[in-house]
Each structure stands twice: as C-alpha cells, then as structure tokens.
C-alpha cells in the first residue's frame, strides 16, 4: 500500500523564522545566530527585525549541521567551508549552463 504525498514544497517557496530553521536543521539557535552574524547564512531581508529565511538558508543550514557533526567543525571553520561550497555550487551551475549552450556531438 503506497501513501500519496500531496503536500510538497519547493525550497524556493520557503520562509521560516530562526527558531524554525533551528528545528528543521538540528543546529542550535546560538550557532545559527553566529552563522547569520558572520554572513554565512543570510535572511531574506537583512533589515527585518524578525528575520525570515528562505531556500538558500535552509540548504546552507542543513549543510552546516552535517558538516559540523561529521567533521567536528567549529564556528570559525564552518562559515569558511559553507562559503566555499556555495562558490562551488555557483560555479557548477554556470558550468552546466555553458555546457548546455555548446553544440553536442553529431552522430
């Protein structure tokens, strides 16, 4: 018997508070606040007194939790690793876009 999944959310449609982000990712609120203050995780609107976080933040925070657990990373090293991973993601996206524009091989 298969259960139907109906409520599916695109990451892009997310907007969660800091405490929800903590609950969703397993990171402590204190660690999250630190990652936000150094810019590794960015709220949708930096001037919002009650910051909301979107898809990119959820993805980065999940990465942060896994990396800190599996590599014992401290809050100094985490932002550095997150920043580098983000750059790699961006470069890979660009690479895929450029590859799509190149003519394929003619059989």
């Amino acid at each position: 018997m298969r259960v139907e999944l109906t409520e599916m959310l695109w990451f892009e449609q997310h907007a969660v508070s800091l405490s929800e982000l903590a609950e969703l990712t397993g990171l402590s609120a204190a660690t999250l606040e630190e990652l936000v203050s150094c810019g590794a995780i960015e709220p949708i609107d930096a001037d919002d007194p009650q910051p909301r976080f979107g898809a990119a933040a959820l993805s980065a925070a999940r990465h942060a939790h896994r990396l800190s657990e599996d590599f014992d990373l401290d809050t100094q090293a985490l932002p550095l690793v997150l920043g580098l991973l983000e750059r790699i993601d961006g470069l890979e996206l660009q690479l895929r876009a450029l590859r799509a524009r190149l003519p394929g091989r003619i059989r």
Partner: protein
Amino acid sequence: MKYKDYYAVLGLERGASDEQIKKAYRRLARKYHPDVSKEAGAEEKFKEVAEAYQTLKDTDKRAAYDQLGVQRPGEEIRPPPDWQQHWQPSGDDAFSAEGLDLSELFERLRGGRGRGGGVHASMPGQDYEIAVPITIDDAYGGTEIDLDLNMPEYDAQGQLRRVPHAFKARIPKGASDGQRLRVPGKGGKGFNGGRNGDLYLNISLRPHPLYRASGHDLYLDLPLAPWEAVLGTSVEVPTPGGPVRLKVPAGTQAGRQLRLPRRGLPTPKGAQGDLFAVVLIVVPSVVSEAEGALYRQLESVSAFDPRAHFSEEGSHAR
C-alpha cells in the same frame, strides 16, 4: 546479523590507537563525505566509514566490538548471551540483539546516543534525503514516482530501526536540475512527542538525447545542410510540448541560437523558459557524382572567402 570489519573499513590494524582511528576517519570523511565529494558511490562509502567510526571512537563500544572476535565480513554472527548481558544498555533488562543489524546494535549499547537521554525524552524524527532523477519530459508535464525508502525511525521503545516506507510522490511540473522539494513530516517518525522528520527530494534531470537544460531554458542542436543555412528555410523542430515550425533566415551562421520563446520548461510559478535551437552546419560525408559536380561548379563561381580575416588579422599583428 552480518559481521562488518570496522577496522578494515577505516584501513586500520586491530591495535590502532585512538589517534590513528580519528585520523583515518578524518582522511576518509574528507574523501567520501557527500557534501564535499564527487566520487561515485561516495555517500554509501561515507555511511560505512561513519558507522565504523561511531563504534570504534567510543572506548566501551570498541571493547564490545573487539569481543565479538574477528570474523569474515558478511558472515552471519550472533552475539553470545553473556556478551549481551555484559554490554546491554543500563536499565534495559529486556535488551535483545535479535533482529538488529550491527550498526543498530552498537547504536544502542551502553553510551549509545539512541537512548542516552533516557527512555522518556522526546526525540525529533530523522530527516531523510534522497536523489530523484527525472526526465526532461517529466519536468515538463509533472510526474508521479514510486519511492521505496528504508527510513531510520524510532519504535515504541525509542530505539532506532530501519522501517520500509512506500510512497507515491507527485512531482509538480516546473522541476529543474538541482531543485529541491521538502515534504514536511514525512521523514522518520519522532519519538515521544518529538516532531516527525522531513523528507527531502533532490531533483536531477537525466540526460536527454535531444535537449540540454539550463535552468528552465532548453537547448537543442539544429543541424542544417549548407544550402539551407545559405538560402534560409523553414524546419520542424521538436519541443517537449510538441513539434513547432521554425523559420531559419537566409545566411544563418553555425553556432547561432534561434530562440523559441516559452517552449522550454515551465517554472513552478507558472512562467516558462525558452527553447534555443543551436545551429550546426553539417555536410554529407559521401556525395554522388552529380552533387560533386555542383559543388565544383559552386567553387568556381563563388568569390566567398571564409578565411579573409586571417590575412587581415595577420597584417595587424605585423
């Protein structure tokens, strides 16, 4: 349960020091961690490494593991009753290794995290993340996929077990490469009032024989015969929504991109990407005598010099 050689997984001898175990784990984690590794099968390999490290880094668990003796990996083993009695989680007289696999067994032993917080503590369910490869046609029209997942889940006693779950998931149209879907509450069940985990679906697009995707735009090679490119033509072009006619202007150069607006992939917000036909000029590898004669005639009457810029650029350089 099947025996696993945790030392071999980490590439170590049995007598390895704690420092050597930590070093081996760090080296292998850097190589295989799914967030930083591009190696094929990295995720599976990392799970093995992490499982071995979880047991060997803990003095008690390592001693318990060592007392199982050296077996061949994959061999069926059953921990003897006195072993179970000695290592059972404190306060759990009903502890049984029956039906557990080796990782579950060590998860629960003394000092294990599974019940470390006490039987009554609530624990959030585990998140579960899976890769979902779909075709470009699936992304265009939406699709249904069957998921058979083995999710780590807490049972009534608060113990982690792998529980099979079968889902049917509707992937709405508008998916693109690298997009993610979150299904709230459909990961592992929480224990004792803890929230249920979430299920994360990472969408990737399978390579398509005709189209290449870039975000929601699609690229298609459009091969033209030399005379079609010179004289212009109208060709039928396949698109995911069905074939359309495309006017190729006279004098179309190779590499030019002819845009078909809103013939790419739909976006979740209801917009639609474009389809770009990338012009290639192709020539027949074999020509008939009559064709050959016409090409030679063309050669003799044409003043076209495709490499005129060579001499111009060359003279600039001097």
